[in-house]
């Protein structure tokens, strides 16, 4: 059991940075290859969810707090709709990016960039929020997700205890 857990932890530590890097690639290279904000957001969320599954949700919450994911979630939609509103103020129609920069192509490029970023933020925020909500519930009851993956669960308990002592 112990060996399996060590394996899981080591492998997770090795693959989480490439996952995040890949999500950034998918996010910002979506104009040229397959991908875009939605896929990038999901992949980014997967990195944090993997972290939460293996190291415990409470530690994942320290890496990225639940409040932060909610703010990211809302900011994404705001960024998307805000891009549309800005293009309205600059004299175009809602979500007409051509007016955002001097040339039409430049404006479109900037607009797509911002919009895809908004989608990515919303999707990542939403997925992590949903995961935290489910896992928080389970944690409160008797943490079967964590038990399933991480039967001993020393670290999360320790952290939780410390947090309780701190106040």
């Amino acid at each position: 059991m112990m060996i399996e857990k060590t394996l899981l932890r080591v492998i997770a530590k090795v693959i989480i940075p490439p996952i995040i890097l890949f999500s950034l690639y998918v996010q910002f290279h979506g104009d040229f290859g397959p991908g875009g904000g939605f896929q990038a957001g999901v992949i980014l969320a997967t990195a944090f969810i993997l972290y939460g599954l293996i190291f415990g949700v409470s530690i994942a919450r320290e890496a990225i707090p639940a409040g932060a994911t909610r703010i990211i979630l809302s900011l994404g939609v705001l960024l998307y709709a805000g891009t549309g509103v800005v293009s309205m103020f600059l004299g175009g129609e809602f979500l007409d990016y051509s007016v955002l920069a001097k040339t039409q192509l430049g404006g479109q490029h900037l607009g797509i960039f911002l919009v895809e970023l908004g989608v990515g933020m919303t999707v990542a925020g939403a997925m992590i929020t949903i995961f935290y909500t489910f896992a928080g519930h389970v944690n409160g009851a008797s943490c079967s997700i964590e038990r399933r993956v991480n039967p001993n669960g020393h670290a999360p308990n320790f952290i939780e205890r410390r947090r309780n002592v701190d106040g």
Partner: protein
Amino acid sequence: MTASAFWLVRLRNLFAVVMLFGVFSLFAAALYLVMDAVDVAFTEAAVGAGISTVLMLGTLALTHDTEKVHKKPSPISLILVLITGGVLVYGTFDMPRYGDKNAPIHQHVANRYIEKSGQEVGPPNIVTSILASYRGYDTLGETAVVFTAAIGVLAIIGRVKGQGMPTSMHARRRNEEDEPEEAAPDAQDAQISTDQETKS
């Protein structure tokens, strides 16, 4: 893919069902890939095989592992399913063949996207320029749907117990005003979010 679908129906252990669902999604992603729909395959692999598996496991942890076995299946439901399936299969006979260049979908706006999107929008990936620029409203709607789903989950089960904003707000409100009104707004919230979830 078909085999895994049949297996899914037969299984009673929901843990295995969730895993098999991931396998099914992966097959679907491979199928999209074969049909050159790379973006869709990408999404299917990430969402269907990745995230939704984790979320369904989370749901399982909140409920039970094994499906309740119902009484014997009634013949009426079997007949209904057969009829519906038959009608659906009959409907596919009207669809154009895969890759048919006279199909309606290739006659409408697709040509313009393919010919003009380079000059009008720019990115070499036409899928991106369609999603983000030509169909910007739709994508805004999709983003709002994802947002609403997260808000719905938070509203339904996020506030019962644990850390975070909704609960603390809840607790604070309970402390401040002693509470004949409290039950009513909560029920309303839950109602609204259930509706939203159904829509999304």
